[in-house]
């Protein structure tokens, strides 16, 4: 696989704290890669280092094989979709999209701008100003403005977080479709695990400036390498040293045989969530455990003595 962007031991230290610490990663051309982590984990700083708004304290950033960490933002062929979109309020949709092309004095401005505006479905709205657009439309202008420059890597800083939740899922699907069509490498920063899992070819989970794990969504979810990764992506019940996901657990009235792991427990409370039921239980040692069961299955009453069981293969183990 051809490597387009490479970070080698990149750190960004501020006088008060270390925002990014020794981050190394490779992005293949055409890949959709997400950086996932809680706020303050250093994911946005990493993005800003690649964009050129910050200079790394240590390490090297390579784009197409050459170092770019000392170049100005306008000397790098990467482009950013900002969290608040940062559209130019005094310019129309068309002028916003043409802004970068004009700076680069390119030809064929008309064709490329029209193609990109069609791609993001903004045809007919070219002469509107950002203030006259909906949140979703603004997001698409921001995307078009960057895509038209055909960057080697498109950097997206939580681009869906400003949208209302109903719109977010729809825009997420559109974003993925656009990325597939244009074939541009996306580096996507988010704190939303569902977004990261559903969009990415691969993702990296960050915590306190460190990159804790890189992998496909399946690898990260099913074989998390640290307790932090396990609990940041989905819920985990900690039973001694091993973790078990709520949906990997079952509830039975009899102790299970057949080589399953099994623990006695007491039902505390059931919460109906529409598509499933979350059952809060208490293990015999007093620790809580949550089990996700189908709403079509058996119902359990509070106070009932039951057995929780799971497959050994579903256990998450850490050193």
């Amino acid at each position: 696989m051809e490597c387009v962007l490479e970070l080698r031991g990149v750190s960004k230290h501020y006088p008060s704290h270390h925002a990014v610490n020794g981050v190394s990663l490779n992005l293949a051309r055409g890949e959709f890669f997400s950086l996932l982590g809680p706020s303050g984990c250093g994911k946005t700083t990493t993005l800003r280092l690649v964009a050129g708004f910050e200079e790394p304290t240590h390490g090297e950033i390579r784009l197409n094989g050459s170092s770019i960490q000392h170049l100005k933002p306008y000397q790098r062929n990467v482009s950013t979709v900002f969290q608040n979109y940062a559209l130019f309020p005094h310019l129309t949709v068309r002028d916003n999209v043409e802004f970068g092309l004009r700076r680069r004095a390119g030809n064929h401005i008309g064709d490329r701008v029209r193609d990109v505006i069609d791609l993001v479905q903004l045809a007919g709205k070219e002469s509107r100003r950002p203030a006259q657009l909906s949140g979703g439309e603004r997001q698409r202008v921001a995307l078009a403005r960057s895509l038209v420059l055909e960057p080697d890597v498109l950097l997206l800083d939580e681009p869906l977080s400003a949208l209302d939740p109903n719109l977010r899922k729809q825009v997420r699907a559109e974003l993925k479709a656009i990325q597939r069509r244009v074939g541009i490498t996306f580096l996507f920063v988010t704190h939303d695990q569902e977004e990261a899992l559903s969009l990415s070819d691969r993702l990296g989970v960050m915590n306190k400036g460190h990159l804790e794990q890189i992998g496909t969504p399946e690898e990260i979810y099913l074989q998390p390498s640290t307790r932090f990764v396990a609990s940041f992506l989905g819920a985990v019940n900690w039973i001694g040293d091993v973790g078990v996901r709520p949906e990997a657990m079952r509830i039975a009235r009899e102790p299970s045989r057949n080589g399953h792991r099994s623990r006695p427990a007491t039902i505390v409370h059931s919460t109906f969530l529409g598509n499933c039921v979350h059952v809060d239980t208490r293990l015999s040692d007093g620790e809580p455990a949550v089990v996700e069961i189908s709403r079509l299955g058996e119902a359990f009453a509070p106070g009932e003595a039951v057995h929780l069981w799971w497959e050994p293969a579903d256990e998450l183990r850490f050193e």
Partner: protein
Amino acid sequence: MKRTPALAIYAVGAFLFLHLPLLILSIFSFNSSRFTVWQGFSLRWYAAAIKDTQLTESAVNSLIIATVATLVSTVLGTLCAYGLWKRTSRPLAGSLYLSLVTPEIVTGISLLAFYQWIFRFLRVQLGMHTVILAHISFSIAYVVIVVIARLRTVDATLEEAALDLGANEWQAFRYVTLPAILPGVVAAALLAFTVSFDDYVITSLVAGVDSETLPMVIYAIARRGVNPVVNAISALIVIGFGSLVVISERLRSA
């Protein structure tokens, strides 16, 4: 909401207190008599004002000084505001407020002392150029205050977006930040023009023989006694600057 008559009376009273003198001045500028007794409508004082070469020459001086001082202080002040916006400096911002609150007489005396010290090394004298320099130096603070207020409403990520899309630092300022703050810059220029045109205290200290400004001449005439020519020229100034203020307010809210 119920209207309170007392409040309306108070408002009218306050307004009259502020503007009655200007109104009376304007009315008497059309009086055919030299004295403050109404005798009939006449434009003779306006005609006299236009014929008075001392008045017209000093008005031209004032316009030249105010125009040059406005252009220079608007450019320098806007750049200074931009710098303070990008990189806050408390001492520098504080020094600008200091120059706003320094009594004019102190500013004037200090400039005069400064010029005389400089003149020991350079073969120059007080004149139009010293007035212009003085006006630039005190107008800059006004420009910075107005422009920085406008800059604070500008989203700082817009410039990052411009750099990100391939604009260099100058292009980012020219095509993104400047259009966003332009109404503030124009309002600042109008304010600088007003402040410069109006100044008497500082100007009278640093002016040379060839650089009498309109306020200096008006002051000299008024000291010799009531003269309706002064009323006429003052009414013209009020109308001129009144329209500038209206334009400036429109731009500031734009």
